[in-house]
């Protein structure tokens, strides 16, 4: 790392130990929820406790933000520390302590803030589960917030690892919340195991760092980097970024470890919103931003991140275009948007990546929660072919329009917050001196057009057009249990093109969201819009971007500067399509976004028949058939992984299992055991009796040992 991005040295500040409550409160809340579950309390007490605890930790984080002057290290207690000498490499130190810099605060602000709002939303959403299940749900949410806090605020990489696996546990428990459905159980298992693959990379990266720098505490690691990053040991430190990367790709669902995230949508929707969209999946971005100086240890490390990110963004967008389940569309959009963040990190703008994480957290949580409201109201229905015209139904206006805001932001409509945050990434890519980054930038723009298309495909289908809906027939997503009386005749519900009035005959009444869900949707919409203020301040008031300031003061400082305006005369005169870079990107980005929306409007609002015709035409032609099929089946990645890894391993295991039982134990061990028994039979005339075999085997054993000793003795130990 060049010296101009010196990471500020952290000050040890034990007096700030009160910030630790931001971690402790969710943990306490988890314990109380467990007590509620054990006592089988029927009420909403667990939700109350959790919301209160999360809100309190949000307040603590805000207070910490107000009191923030520079990076601090807050010791709490010794966790895993021991030493066998005085040398730097003769100790292992992993205390339970906090490392707080502006990156930490930036992350914690939206994690605890969104956590509180989503827990409030869930208090209504999960009300049908009241009882042990309700408490179990909020136990999971509390554990998650604790683990996420440890991941973000931890003072060393072992605490990060604690949080890293802890959020995996919370994710496992919450995806599998509806544990009687095999699909949910399988999805939970898949999520944990795929994450573990990444976790192994992270663990090895941690060992590698430790072996080279003799410490796992950020403050000392950064100090070593400030001093030039030279290590005493001649180890291949350039592997470190790749190992850390693997962990990040697992947690943030990037290629090749992305297939667990769509399946994770089996969990209750608030979980999808909080864990699988807004916060947990951004842990990978956080890891790379936190360890950014170490990604300079190999010249190709950041380029790899960029390529994986850009590629995943495009790949996920193509799959998202062809999904019918609203939550799955949003899940793929999450993978795609995370891809942008990694692209940003890779091309060298940590600011763009982190700001996009921030804006994305709001609008994606909003989108998921509107989808959840729809599911909640329509007996678990999420198929966008079976829902239409929601904005005309009384009581659903708020949902429709907050969803519209979310969609505009996801589509990066000009002058929305996401437009600025995505621009920061693409601008950096397009103005890069590396041709491949420029290529990735154009690929990102193309992906942006696809994003706009699939986002508004959902909105136009679900919220516009003629009023028409079918409740889901089964207890899909665990929401429908209470709606069973509504949905009893859903299996003979009308087909696709029936007149909307027919619904009355079935007696299904969607129930509109009540106060908690409505409030949260409203607040999140406000938050989504407000997330753009830092960028507006920069773009229109020529002020500073708050997010950029936050990143610039942290370990990710090296990528925090923005691409300069040509007018400000920094000497770098970048162009995009011959125009000044900012203006050029504004034009191109707006074109991509609006173009995508217009295509969606044509195919899914004005002429839905043409969309069907297009699909029929593609499916009818042998040469184009593969395209929709592959997109709908997520390019067969699950099948490929199954064939490449799971099946051979499983077959191998069966062979080993058989061999262990019948060869190793059956032939070798039992065969050897028969030798003395046969000998016993030989000598039976001499003795006789039942236990002879064993006695002889003992004698034979001793004799063997003695003979062996004698032989060793005679050889004179050589």
């Amino acid at each position, binding site marked *: 790392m060049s010296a101009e991005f010196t990471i500020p040295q952290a000050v040890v500040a034990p007096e700030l130990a009160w910030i630790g409550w931001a971690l402790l409160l969710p943990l306490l809340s988890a314990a109380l929820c467990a007590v509620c579950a054990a006592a089988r309390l029927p009420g909403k007490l667990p939700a109350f406790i959790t919301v209160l605890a999360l809100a309190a930790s949000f307040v603590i984080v805000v207070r910490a933000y107000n009191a923030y002057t520079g990076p601090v290290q807050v010791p709490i207690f010794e966790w895993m520390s*021991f030493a066998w000498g005085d040398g730097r490499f003769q100790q292992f130190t992993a205390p339970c302590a906090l490392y707080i810099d502006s990156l930490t605060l930036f992350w914690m602000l939206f994690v605890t803030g969104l956590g509180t709002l989503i827990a409030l939303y869930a208090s209504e959403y999960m009300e049908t589960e009241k009882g042990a299940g309700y408490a179990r749900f909020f136990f999971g949410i509390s554990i998650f917030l604790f683990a996420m806090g440890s991941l973000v605020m931890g003072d060393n990489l072992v605490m990060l690892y604690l949080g890293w696996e802890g959020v995996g546990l919370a994710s496992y428990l919450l995806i599998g919340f509806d544990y009687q459905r095999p699909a949910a159980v399988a999805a939970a298992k898949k999520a944990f195991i795929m994450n573990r693959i990444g976790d192994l990379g992270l*663990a090895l990266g941690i060992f*590698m760092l430790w072996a080279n720098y003799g410490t796992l505490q950020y403050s000392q690691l950064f100090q070593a980097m400030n001093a030039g990053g030279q290590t005493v040991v001649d180890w291949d430190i350039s592997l470190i970024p790749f190992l850390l990367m693997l962990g990040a790709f697992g947690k943030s669902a990037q290629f090749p470890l992305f297939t667990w995230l769509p399946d994770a949508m089996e969990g209750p929707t608030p979980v999808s919103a909080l864990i699988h969209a807004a916060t947990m999946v951004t842990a990978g971005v956080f890891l790379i931003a936190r360890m950014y100086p170490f990604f300079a240890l190999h010249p190709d490390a950041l380029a790899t991140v960029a390529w994986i990110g850009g590629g995943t963004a495009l790949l996920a967008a193509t799959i998202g275009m062809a999904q019918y389940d609203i939550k799955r569309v949003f899940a793929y959009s999450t993978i795609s948007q995370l891809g942008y963040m990694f692209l940003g990190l890779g091309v060298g703008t940590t600011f763009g990546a982190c700001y996009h994480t921030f804006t994305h957290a709001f609008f994606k949580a909003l989108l998921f929660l509107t989808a959840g409201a729809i599911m909640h109201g329509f007996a678990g229905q999420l198929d966008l072919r079976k829902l239409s015209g929601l904005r005309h139904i009384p009581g659903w206006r708020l949902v429709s329009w907050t969803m519209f805001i979310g969609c505009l932001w996801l589509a990066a409509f000009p002058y929305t917050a996401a437009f600025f945050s995505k621009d920061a990434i693409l601008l950096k890519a397009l103005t890069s001196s590396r041709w491949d980054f420029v290529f990735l930038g154009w690929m990102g723009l193309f992906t942006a057009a696809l994003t706009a298309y699939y986002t508004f495909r959902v909105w136009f289908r679900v919220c516009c057009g003629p009023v028409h809906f079918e409740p889901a027939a089964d207890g899909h997503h665990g929401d429908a249990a209470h709606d069973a009386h509504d949905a009893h005749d859903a299996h003979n519900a009308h087909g696709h093109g029936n007149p909307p009035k027919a619904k009355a005959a079935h007696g299904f009444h969607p129930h509109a969201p009540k106060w908690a869900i409505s409030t949260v949707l409203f607040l999140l919409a406000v938050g989504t819009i407000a997330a753009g203020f830092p960028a507006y301040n920069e773009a229109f008031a020529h002020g500073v971007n708050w997010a950029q300031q936050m990143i610039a003061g942290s370990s990710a400082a090296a990528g925090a500067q923005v691409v300069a305006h040509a007018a400000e005369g920094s000497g770098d005169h970048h162009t995009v399509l011959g125009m000044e870079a900012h203006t050029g990107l504004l034009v191109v980005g707006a074109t991509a976004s609006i173009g995508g929306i217009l295509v969606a409007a044509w195919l899914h609002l004005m002429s839905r028949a043409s969309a069907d015709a297009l699909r029929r035409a593609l499916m009818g032609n042998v040469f184009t058939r593969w395209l929709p099929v592959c997109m709908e089946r997520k390019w067969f990645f699950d099948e490929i992984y199954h064939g490449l890894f799971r099946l051979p391993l499983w077959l191998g295991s069966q062979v080993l299992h058989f061999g262990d039982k019948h060869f190793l134990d059956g032939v*070798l061990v039992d065969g050897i055991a028969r030798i003395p028994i046969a000998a016993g039979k030989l000598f039976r005339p001499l003795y006789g009796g039942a236990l002879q075999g064993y006695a002889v085997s003992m004698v034979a054993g001793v004799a063997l040992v003695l003979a062996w000793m004698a032989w060793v003795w005679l050889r004179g130990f050589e």
Partner: protein
Amino acid sequence: MSLIWTSILMPVVGAALVAIASPRLSKWISLLATLGSLAALALFAFEFPAWNNGQHHPLEPGSAWLAAAGIRLSVGFDTVSLLLALLTAFLMPLCIIGSFTAVTERVREYYGWFLLLGASIILAFAARDAILFYVGYEFTLVPMTILIGVYGGTERRIAAVKMFVYTFLGSMFMLAAIIYVAWEQRVSSGAWSFDIDALTATAVRLPASAQYWLFASLMIGFAVKVPLFPLHTWLPLAHDQAPTAGSVILASAMLKLGTYGNYRFALPMAPAGGAELMVVVAVLSIIAIIYASLICWVQTDAKKLIAYSSVAHLGLCMLGLFALNPVGAEGAVFYMVNHGLSTGALFLCIGMFYERYHTKDTDVLGGLAKKMPVWASFMVLFTFASIGLPGLNGFIGEFLCLGGTFIAEHDGQSGYPGLLGPRFAVIAGLGLIMAAMYLLILLGKIVWGPLREPHHDAAHDHSTAHSSLPRDLSAREILVLTPLAIACIWLGVQPQPMLKAIEPCATRMLANYPDEVRRLKEREALAVSEDAVSPGVVSASTAGGVP
């Protein structure tokens, strides 16, 4: 009489009382005896002065037993043996409470033998005299054989005999090695002695080739007990057939005699042999991890699955021990204790549903969370402890074992050069992924999913056999699992005191290794530079993956 002897003899006295008491009274007597033993040991631990110096306490030798042969009844603990003895004493009363409803026939013999089993394990950990250790070590086989052979499943005879003969044969090698060292000791000092410290002092002075064979024969004895691949096949069968409490003690305490043996005898006594053979042992440990994990994956018997997972987990423990640096050794010792807690708890959990359904087949039984939510909560907790989730106890040992292995190549800085290095850690790390796979598959089958119960038993069960057991856990069963759950969480959050206490013992055990390994490396470097045909031993370890 010292507290150590009290804790050993309390169960023995209990066993004697059980033999003459009524069956109904016997379980209470044995509970009292084990609680007394635990209390004595806890008192001892409370006053233990050697927590932070790696020494034994008490240091003075005990009274002579067979004076002519130099065998003494001397007992004493260092931190490691004390922790393992405490683990055993902690699990004993829990196992006894857990057996209240499981054992209904020949009750007195059951508790009697069970108490003797506990006493002999504690004796083996406490022994400061090699023969005394051997007595404890071998005597565990007798009660365990009877527990399996009488109270086990349908193949109990085969399982019991196989376990007995297999481990007995293994320990013959160990005994031969001990006698050999004692003979050398007599030759050099003129009098017989089996004091472990004295034997160790003699053994480290032996020529390298003698140490090589010494290490190999000690290793064979302990490897059977650990068990290390390919000497593991007795274990799944024994676990499969053993009654629940037998499985718990077998996995949690008896197997630790194997790893403890390495810690106490094989590694300190024969550093030259250990240094040369460590790559072999490490390779076998890695094979054990991968091999057993893969077999776990396709197991449909819950108990066998946990048994094979023990093989994999202890493979990692051995790998940490043979990393031959303080990090790995600390991790290994920590892992010994924590594997005992989490695996013991898992066996107890499996025993609890086995008592209700009389099957451990995960294809027949499943989705128990619906019916037994309290049991399911414990099961999930212990499974994640076993997976090595940070914040629970399993993680600390696992992380340090892997970390120790990873840095074992790295020379000069830590003061402990090694030969293993990142390649070993990467392969062993795959075991982490696989542990999550097979244990979550187990959870997915028996805890989650739609409720599946064996049909023939369900109707039968409710009417007659076990109407005494409630649908979910009884207060007694919760009482058994709660201390384990607390221990799992506590040691995950606060491992610090234990790590600090283990550290001096770990460095003491490794005292001779830095020099030995350096010497070995120099010799190998020489062999490579001369491009000569190296003698068999060295080339064998070179072939094992040394750079």
